[in-house]
């Protein structure tokens, strides 16, 4: 742009055009100054943040950097096969009586001769926590979202209350809910389910009501003209439009909740997260790697499955990006 604004071609400009050009160039200059100033401010914030983080950390970044891989070096199972023995609860040749190598005691017996390896069992618990809390959360969000959208609810008070409820539900830290319930109900999956459920209602509720607000209101007008009540309007005018998006968001949330229930497990919600934090805390390398591999496979599978399902249910449009929630 700079070279096109050279002196020669502009000399023939008329007075009006000249004014417009000057105005344009002054605006460009102001804009540049703003950009530079904001970049400088940004860099200062970044520098201060990094310095703060570094000084607040117990080990300093540059001091610790050479030892970065030490943990991984020291955290190596005796043989690569150990990982699979730990994964499938098979007896280990390194067994010395300590729980570190005693994998077989973890077996979960279904019948006298058939067992599920413990980690698979724990993984199943975690997955079920995620699925149950997603189902319950999506149902809750589904019920709430119609009361939060401007186009369906006339009363501002209802809308305001429902929206604030949703906000609190999704901003409330999951570990606090899980921790409080774990103190009451003792450690176990139920506190995790409730914690993830609370968060899911808040998060999905927001996405849902935004979809509802973007719905086309013409079918609603048609039904209203025919004398339909509120429930009928929601059921026959709004629901058919928004349901595909609801399903898509719920599937997306399932992926997120699988991770969330793992994390909550680590702070006392049962399932694979709890086993994981135990094994990493006790320095059981083979067990830890076995769980990481299982988690990796699970998360990839869940991602792929839900992507496939979404594509089948809603078609390609749900993958188009940046169009807003329509």
């Amino acid at each position, binding site marked *: 742009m700079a070279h096109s604004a050279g002196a020669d071609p502009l000399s023939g400009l008329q007075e009006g055009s000249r004014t417009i050009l000057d105005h344009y160039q002054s605006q460009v200059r102001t804009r540049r100054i703003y950009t530079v100033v904001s970049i400088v401010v940004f860099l200062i*914030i970044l520098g201060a*943040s*990094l310095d*703060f*983080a570094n000084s*607040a*950390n*117990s*080990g300093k*970044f540059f001091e*610790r950097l050479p030892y*970065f891989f*030490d*943990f*991984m070096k020291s*955290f190596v199972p005796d043989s690569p096969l150990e990982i699979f023995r730990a994964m499938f609860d098979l007896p280990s040749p390194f067994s010395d009586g300590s729980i570190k190598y005693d994998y077989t005691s973890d077996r979960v017996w279904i019948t006298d001769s058939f067992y599920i390896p413990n980690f698979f069992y724990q993984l199943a618990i975690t997955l*079920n926590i995620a*699925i*149950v809390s997603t*189902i*319950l959360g999506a149902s809750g969000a589904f019920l709430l979202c119609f009361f939060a959208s401007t186009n369906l609810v006339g009363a501002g008070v209802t809308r305001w209350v429902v929206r604030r409820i949703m*906000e*609190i539900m999704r*901003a*409330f*830290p999951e*570990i*606090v809910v899980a*921790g*409080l319930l774990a*103190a*009451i*109900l*003792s450690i*176990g*999956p*139920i506190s995790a*389910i409730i914690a993830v459920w609370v968060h899911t209602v808040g998060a999905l509720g927001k996405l849902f009501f935004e979809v509802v607000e973007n719905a086309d209101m013409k079918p609603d007008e048609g039904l209203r003209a*025919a*004398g*339909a*009540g509120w429930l009928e309007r929601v059921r026959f005018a709004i629901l058919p439009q928004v349901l595909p998006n609801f399903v898509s968001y719920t599937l997306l949330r399932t992926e997120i909740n699988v*991770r969330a229930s*793992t*994390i909550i497990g*680590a*702070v006392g919600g049962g399932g694979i*997260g709890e086993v*994981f*934090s135990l094994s*990493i805390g006790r320095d059981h390398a083979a067990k830890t790697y076995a769980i*990481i591999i299982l*988690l*990796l496979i699970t*998360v990839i599978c869940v*991602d792929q499955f839900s992507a496939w399902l979404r594509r089948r249910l809603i078609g390609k449009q749900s993958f*188009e*990006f*940046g169009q*807003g929630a329509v």
Partner: protein
Amino acid sequence: MSSVPTINAAERERLLSAYPDVFHRSFMQRWGLLLISAAVFVYLAFCFAFFNVIPTFMNGNWDRAAIYVQDWYSWRAQPRLRFQNDQVVPQWTSRRQYPEGADINWLKPNADGSRYTITFGSDGNRMEVTPSRVDVYIGGTVYPVTITRDRASLPSDAPAQMEQDDNKVIVYYGFAGQAEIRTSQVYVQRRFLGWANFFFDTHSPFWGRSLPEVVGLMFSGERLDSNQSNASLALDNFLNNASWQHGDILSKLMQTLVMAFVGTLFGTLVAFPLAFIAARNITRSRAANWATKRLFDFLRSIDMLIWALFFTRAFGPGPLPGIAAIFFTDTGALGKVYAEALENIDDKQREGVRSVGAAPVTVQRYGVIPQVLPVFISQSLYFWESNTRSATVIGAVGAGGIGLKLLESMKTNSDWDKVAYMVLLILLVVFAFDNLSNALRSRVMGKKGH
């Protein structure tokens, strides 16, 4: 709805035969919803049994729940009134005790110090404690509890609020508190609404003063400490409040914010160029696309928590492992999202720039970036916002920040007021950042993208 017009049978038949495909519904359309609901219901019922929901709820310590919830908005003073040499001597447990010789309006000795009066709310609910006898007043009626060498015994006409438990007597005054009368001491729990000593702990010279008094002292009074002004002393006392630890909590909160900010920023900076390599329509090499996309998958699918655990081992607890964990997962997540945005761009603008002979980099700069930048920025802001929340959670596994503090307070099972305080702070910060990020996003995207 009587006003809705109905159609007669002949008209109905005509419509059905004229538009058969409109009225024909497949098996799944007819029964799908019902079948799916039934399956979900069966599944939930199975889980209900599998997770032992009813036994868990039955065995829950619900009385504990009530105490914890009360702890959120109240505090307990827990003196032990010991009987020593026929005297009653109050003793304070570790946290939030009163200083020696403090004048406490609900716990008063009489003139000769042999008898202490504890008031639970009103004058009718009080206890007169002497080493040999405790007079328990409930609603103005007195129930004397006699204490012998090996037993404190309930009077025969005691109400339900008083209870004999082995050789001790427990008195419940509801919210105001409770007391255990034992042979050697009376263990009192006195509950008050509000957060005690929230601003200044009992060791501070400002403790017990009213707000106008403190403000007056800060700006005009004589120096309480000759080394520093009253204002700075007040700030110092406030931040180093021994029971509330404001300074520590605020710095931990700051760590959480820094973790989210720096982690997301670095994630954005690294994902940005990589996304161009991952996008099929921009980099023509399939191998490069594939490799970058799998790298994103790898970074994303190992959970933030696991990265945090690994980095905690490397860097030690603190915000650095948190930053690194957020950076790694965000690079994966943002990279994927960016690459998808790039693959959806309108190709005409690129062609236009290319047709005037622009170099490849210039083509990207003027043909691609203007289209995707709003999406990129909006996504990064969205991740920043959600990471402010996640940073709390990964803090709990040792990555620093307020999460760790929160978990520690919960594990002690007595600091629930501090938990409430931290939760409030987190909620405030999350709301503030939600709004900030929303405001920035709607500026970037224009009205539509919000």
